[in-house]
Structures are given as structure tokens and as C-alpha cells.
């Protein structure tokens, strides 16, 4: 509490934001707490280090050939793409200063930033972009991200600062794909397989705000600020990511000062961080993440073929109870595949409030009558099915258990089976051997979800596992990805959400919140729709509070 009083004293002088800090001492820190903090102490200063804790080690530095989030996070300090998402999830230029899209949507002209240098001081030019493109479509490059580059008909670079990309058909997700980290041609040219190059394993060179210092596999990854970064030198001098696989250890390391930040579990956020001591040392943040959990039905299953049955199940599920029980209230109900607040999120779709009576009425309409033991029956068959989910995901198994109770209340018997991930995917999901499943999708800012909802994507290795097929959705998906016009896209995706809400191929359950916590000395963290990392180079520690001072 002593530190808290100190804050109040400091704040008397900056009366404007005093209430924010008071609230911070008395209760929970919420979104926006960081804003008040920015004015709290001293001007931005260079120096200090931030120590992250990561559950997993990285697998390489070149995002073209890695697919795990730890590697992509690490690469984001060192590399840039032509475009990136800003704090409001709109695309903006990064290595490209600007771009134009031709009226027919088939040609994108990127104007590159001048005066950008690789970490070894070689200038960045359009040659690097051409090289990256060629590597992405090269069959020798083991990349999972080649598809959107194969849609390109031709790439040309009339001068060192212009790149022209041409497509056969307009392809809206293409713009996002140019956020792919650009590779240094002068260092990679001699390696036929960039995955096996030293740049991927031991000596990455990028254009980004931080330079590589060292990687000790299984232990830590270290970056230092790049003084010549084209958007200015980052304030925080060093970024260290320690590999700590265990969530409980991470939390103890945080409390003992071994790491400065982590992502809390809902339990840790709501129950284990409410002590005065914790609040004096850390700031908690929360914002909606790009993930949602759903209950999906195999749509050719005899029970679930009938839309009224799916709607009845939707009415039997109390999403609020799920969020309270599984996430301690730290999440939001979802009604479709886009997160609330996204520019294509449609708030006015059909909703299914918790209503067991209505659920029973829908079931009756579909021919299901309560049997002797209370379980619904139709043509002598009891309404009993099995839901599958993967082992090791606590929130999914809890979700299953709560839904089991909620369905029992309307006379539906649901068994739960949890399976090891590989067996779950390969033996059940890919072979369509399930009645229903609980899974999640992590979606990005790009609204194209062709792979999940198109009726052409129902093969064993494809992602429309439930077998959803709707001619109008197919048409709208195509429409949405073939135009760059935001209004047209928005209209298409709004309508798709209406149809999905009506059809309920999934019962869309909830989106959890991301719950990061940072040591209090870090300032300038401002949660936005894009999360918090977007302005990392502007974060700082006031001079007097810096902890690691042995380097600058």
C-alpha cells in the first residue's frame, strides 16, 4: 500500500487522471489503465530490458518456414513486412510507404520506403521483395504460406522503390499476405532451402526495431534495440524471452521478479492476483482475443440434420454460465465467427437466449418427445450423442461438462470424450467420425473464411469438418474475397453471419479475453482492438525506475 500512497502524492500535481490511479489502487485495473500511467512519471527514457516468459521455444527466425506463435513473436522484433495492421486493425504501410490498387482490383503497386537498411547496413530495395516472392512460390521452400503468393500472376520492380503485383482475379486477402516478413536477398541468395540457412537458425538479419543477440535453445532469446530503425530507436534497450514451459513456474517467476510479463489464466487473473502486493508491482490488462470456442455438429448426422434440433440446442445452452464457469467472466458471448468490434462484425443476427422451454418446443416440432426416463425420443431412438474434444485444454473440457448439464435439463443426453490431439484430429475429425465436437478457431483480422465455410472445402484435410453447405454462403464468400471495396465486403460478411446464425452449424459459444500483466515500471501500454503489441517501440521505463542498467 505504501507505493499506492506515493502515487496519489505524485498525482496531486497531475489532477486530471487522479481518479484512474485511485481506481487502480482500490480495485481492478482494466483497459485504459495504461493511459493514466503514461503521464505518471518522467518523460520517455531509453534503457532497461523487458523479460518475457514463453511456454515454448522458437523453431527458427524466418516466419516463411515456421508456423508456431513463439517463432512468429520473436521474428516480429527483427523483421518487417510491406504492410501491417494498425491499432484499429486497418492495414497500413510498413516497408511500403503507400500502395495503390487498380480500379479492376487486379494490380497492386507498392511504393517502398527509402533509406531503410538491413541490420548489416545493406540498403533495403525492391530486389528483396522480389526475392521473398520467389522464395515463397519456390517448391523447394517448405512454407505453409505459399498459397496466396501462388495466386499472383506476375511481380515486377520497375525501380528499386516500386513493386507491382498483378493477379488474374482480384483477391482481397492478398493485401494482408504482403505483411509476410521480407527476406534479405544478399544474405539468402546462396541457400536453395532458406529453412536450412544460418539466417533461420543462428544469425537472423532483418530491418526491424531489434537486432539479434543470442538464442540459447530451450533457455532464452535476446534482442537489442536497433538504433537505426526507420521509425526511430525503440526506448526499451533489450528484449529477453525466457523459455519457461510450466504455467505455475511462470507465475512464480513473475512474482519473484524473474520475468516482467506473462499472460495470466482467468483463474490467476481473477483469484490469485488480487493481493495488495501484486497490485503494487504489476498492471493487469484485458482485451478480447481473436479466438472463439464453438460446439460444432456433423451436419449429416441423423439428429443434427434438422435445423430445429440445432436451434433447440442453441437455446438450451446458457453462454453466460459458460463464461462465468470456465473463464471467471473474462470473456464475451459470440454469435458468429467474427469477434465483437471487428469491422465486419454484425451485431444484429438471430440470437438464442437461454430458454429450455423454447428448446423443448423446437425439439417437439422436430418430432422429439420425452420418453419414460425423461430423455427425448423419436422413432424409438433416444437423443444421446457423444461430443469430442482434445485432452489438455482445460477450458474446453469444462465447457463440455457445463453443456452436458444444460442439455440434460432439456432431455438430451451428451457423453463427453476427450482425446489426445493427434488421435482426435487424424482418427476422428479428418475421418468425420464424430457426432459433435468442441473446438476453437483462432481468426485473424482478415475476414475471409472461405476455407472454413465453403462447401468445396469438406475433404479430409480441409477445414469444413461439419460439412456445412449453403449456396448463398458459397456465393458471398467468393464475392467477399474478390473485391477490395470495404463496404461491399462488409455487406457480404454481414449476410454470411445472418445465415450462420440462422443455420447454427456451430453453436458459437464465447471468445476469451487475453489477460496480459506487466511490471508497473513499463509505460505507454495502451490496449486497442489490435491488442497491445502494436506500439511496442514506444513503451518505456522512466529513468529512475529502470531495473537492468548494465547495458544501454
Amino acid at each position, binding site marked *: 500500500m505504501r507505493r499506492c500512497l506515493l502515487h496519489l502524492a505524485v498525482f496531486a500535481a497531475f489532477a486530471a487522471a487522479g481518479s484512474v490511479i485511485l481506481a487502480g489502487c482500490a480495485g481492478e485495473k482494466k483497459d485504459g489503465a495504461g493511459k493514466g500511467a503514461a503521464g505518471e512519471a518522467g518523460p520517455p527514457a531509453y534503457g532497461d530490458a523487458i523479460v518475457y516468459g514463453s511456454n515454448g521455444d522458437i523453431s527458427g527466425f524466418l516466419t516463411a518456414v515456421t508456423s508456431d506463435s513463439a517463432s512468429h513473436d520473436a521474428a516480429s522484433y527483427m523483421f518487417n513486412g510491406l504492410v501491417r495492421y494498425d491499432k484499429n486493425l486497418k492495414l497500413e504501410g510498413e516497408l511500403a510507404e503507400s500502395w495503390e490498387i487498380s480500379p479492376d482490383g487486379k494490380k497492386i503497386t507498392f511504393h517502398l520506403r527509402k533509406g531503410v537498411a538491413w541490420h548489416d547496413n545493406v540498403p533495403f530495395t525492391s530486389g528483396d521483395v522480389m526475392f521473398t516472392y520467389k522464395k515463397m512460390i519456390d517448391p523447394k521452400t517448405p512454407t*505453409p504460406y505459399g498459397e496466396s503468393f501462388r495466386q499472383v500472376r506476375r511481380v515486377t520492380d520497375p525501380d528499386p522503390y516500386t513493386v507491382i503485383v498483378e493477379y488474374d482475379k482480384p483477391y482481397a486477402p492478398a493485401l494482408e499476405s504482403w505483411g509476410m516478413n521480407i527476406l534479405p536477398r544478399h544474405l539468402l541468395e546462396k541457400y536453395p532451402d532458406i529453412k536450412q540457412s544460418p539466417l533461420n537458425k543462428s544469425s537472423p538479419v532483418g530491418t526491424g526495431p531489434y537486432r539479434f543477440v543470442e538464442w540459447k535453445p530451450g533457455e532464452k532469446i535476446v534482442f537489442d534495440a536497433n538504433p537505426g530503425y526507420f521509425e526511430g530507436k525503440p526506448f526499451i534497450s533489450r528484449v529477453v524471452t525466457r523459455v519457461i514451459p510450466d504455467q505455475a513456474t511462470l507465475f512464480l517467476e513473475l512474482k519473484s521478479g524473474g520475468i516482467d510479463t506473462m499472460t495470466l489464466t482467468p483463474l490467476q487473473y481473477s483469484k490469485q492476483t488480487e493481493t495488495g502486493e501484486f497490485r503494487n508491482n504489476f498492471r493487469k490488462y484485458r482485451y478480447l482475443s481473436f479466438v472463439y470456442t464453438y460446439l460444432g455438429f456433423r451436419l449429416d448426422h441423423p439428429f443434427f440434420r434438422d435445423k430445429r434440433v440445432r436451434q433447440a440446442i442453441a437455446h438450451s445452452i446458457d453462454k453466460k454460465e459458460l463464461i462465468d464457469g470456465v473463464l471467471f467472466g473474462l470473456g464475451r458471448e459470440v454469435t458468429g465467427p467474427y469477434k465483437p468490434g471487428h469491422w465486419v462484425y454484425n451485431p444484429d443476427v438471430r440470437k438464442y437466449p437461454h430458454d429450455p422451454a423454447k428448446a423443448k418446443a423446437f425439439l417437439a416440432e422436430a418430432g422429439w418427445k420425452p420418453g419414460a426416463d425423461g430423455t427425448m425420443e423419436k422413432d424409438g431412438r433416444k437423443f444421446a450423442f457423444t461430443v469430442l474434444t482434445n485432452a489438455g485444454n482445460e477450458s474446453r473440457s469444462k465447457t463440455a461438462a457445463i453443456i452436458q448439464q444444460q442439455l440434460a435439463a432439456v432431455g438430451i443426453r451428451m457423453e463427453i470424450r476427450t482425446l489426445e490431439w493427434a488421435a482426435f484430429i487424424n482418427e476422428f475429425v479428418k475421418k468425420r467420425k464424430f457426432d459433435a465436437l468442441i473446438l476453437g478457431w483462432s481468426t485473424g483480422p482478415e475476414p475471409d473464411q472461405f476455407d472454413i465455410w465453403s462447401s468445396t472445402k469438406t475433404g479430409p484435410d480441409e477445414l469444413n469438418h461439419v460439412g456445412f453447405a449453403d449456396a448463398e454462403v458459397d456465393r458471398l464468400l467468393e464475392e467477399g474475397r474478390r473485391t477490395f471495396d470495404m463496404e461491399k465486403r462488409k455487406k457480404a460478411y454481414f449476410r454470411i453471419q445472418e445465415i450462420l446464425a440462422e443455420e447454427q452449424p456451430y453453436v458459437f459459444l464465447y471468445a476469451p479475453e487475453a489477460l496480459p500483466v506487466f511490471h508497473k515500471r513499463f509505460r505507454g501500454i495502451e490496449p486497442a482492438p489490435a491488442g497491445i503489441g502494436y506500439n511496442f517501440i514506444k513503451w518505456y521505463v522512466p529513468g529512475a525506475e529502470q531495473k537492468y542498467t548494465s547495458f544501454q
Partner: protein
Amino acid sequence: MLRYVIRRLVVIPVMLVGISLLSFLAIHLAPGGPISVAADLNPKATAEYRERMVRYYGLDQPLHVQYGRWLVRMSTLDFGPSFAPDGRQVSDKIKERIPVTLTINVLSMGLIFLVAIPIGIYSAVRKDSWFDRISTVTVFTGFAVPTFWLALLLMILFGVKLGWLPISGLVSLEHDSLSLAGRFWDRARHLLLPVLLAGFGGLAGMSRYMRSNMLEVIRQDYIAAAKAKGLGERQVVLRHATRNALLPVITILGLSVPDLLGGAVIFETIFAIPGMGQLFYQGVMARDVPLVMGILVIGAFLTLIGNLLADVGYALADPRIRTG
């Protein structure tokens, strides 16, 4: 003796091939494959990408061809590149982790012998005394308590509440800027809890083993004879009894050789120690065939060598075996 050793040595390669074949088949029985990690539920992983990766790893070949290729490479001690996304050489991955695991295991095994043998001897000599009972309860508690739970409790006490010891990892962030003595101290502080905990669980087995050996020995006639000769108890116990009771411990030592390189997954995960246990576990989960095979072969080789060493050591220590 020499002929015996040679005969045993000749059999080792044959056994290794057998073990590796069984392991190879077992891995391929598990669902999923090395591509799953990147490709499962990834909208960007197209069918074309999957096929390319299958060819990249040589998984399009029939199993016997894959095994044959592996065996040929293995015969030149080339473990090949890992199937993990990092694609690094298996031998490099194992090499950078062996020192860590070896240090912790040697230290904790040393600790076990240092503590368990005296406990065993004393409890045997003073059978059913208070010391015997209390030590029995203590070592069995150590055996029964889940390591991860005890580890967390000790981390909370020494790391968070008292702040005496670091919580996890091998060295602190400032390690490189410390003096030589400082570095040594830094490492020691990081190793203290892991070594203690790794040893604690092993005390029960060893001390009980020592106790029962000792009990058997002190019932022998020659001990009675030694006592009758008028030797002091100290001499009887240490000189005559302990020496003989220690013999079977050689077997245990021999059998522990493979354990020196095998890590414990849970334990390494909690202390964030990049050791062999974690490596193996990740390899299995990612169906990283070359890595799993590499570690299994090393483990099998060490087990066979360890057994041989134990037999030889036994023969050297006990003339009846050597001549008989």
C-alpha cells in the same frame, strides 16, 4: 573373463538393431505425423503443401525403405536432421542438452549415495530404533510426494517469500557480466533446488536397499566371529559388514548409467531446464522420428553398456564370480 566381455560386446549391435526396429515401428503406430504440428487446422496449409512436406521428410517411401535409410545413416553415426520445425541436426540438439542433464543427474545421484548409504547402514545396525523409524517415514514420504508439488512449494518459499534462490532456469540474466566466482555461485544457486528434489525422490529406494543388504550381512557368521574376536562395533560395521553389503550397489550403479542421460519431463518442465527429458517429450509429441530414434538408440546403447559394466564390476569385486 576377456572372452566373456568380447562375447557380450558382439551381441550389442544386434540388440541395438532389434531395439531400433521395434522403436521405429512403435512411433509409426501413433496417429499423426511430423506435419501435423504445422498443418492441422491451419487454413493456409494446402494439400499441395502437405504433399511437399511428406516428400521433404521422405515419408512418401514405404516403411522398410525409411527404416533402411535411417539404418544406413546411423551406421556412420549420422542421426540426420530433426523433423521438428527448426530442422536442426539431431546430434546438435542432443549435444547441447547432455551437459545440463548429466550435471544434474551426477550431482543428484551423488547426493543419493552420500545420504542414502549412511542412512541404510545406520538403520540396519540400529534396527527398529527411533532413527530407523523416522528415516523410513521420511524417505518414503520423499518417495510418495509428487515432485512437481514439492517443487512448487519450495519455489514459493525460497523464491517468492524469502527471495533466497532463483525460481527456474540455469543461470540468471546477468550471468555473462559476473566474475568467475560469481558465475559459479550463480549456477550453484540455480542447481540447488533441482538437484535436491531430484535426489529426494531417489533416497527411499537406495536407503532401503542398503538397509536390507546390511541386515542380511550382519546376520552372517563372520560378523559374529569378528565381534567375538573383540573388534569394536565401528570396525565390525564399517570394515566387515559394509564392504560386503555394498557389493550389490555396483549393480545399481551399472543400471543407473542410462539414467544419467535420461531426464525427467515434469521436473525439467517445472524448473525450465532445457534437458533431455523435455527434448524427448517434445520429439514424441511432434512425431519427430529422427530425434526420438536418436535418443532411444543412445539410451539403449547406454543400458547395454551399463549392464555389461555392472557385470564386469561385479566379477572384479567378487572373486567367486570371476573364477566360477
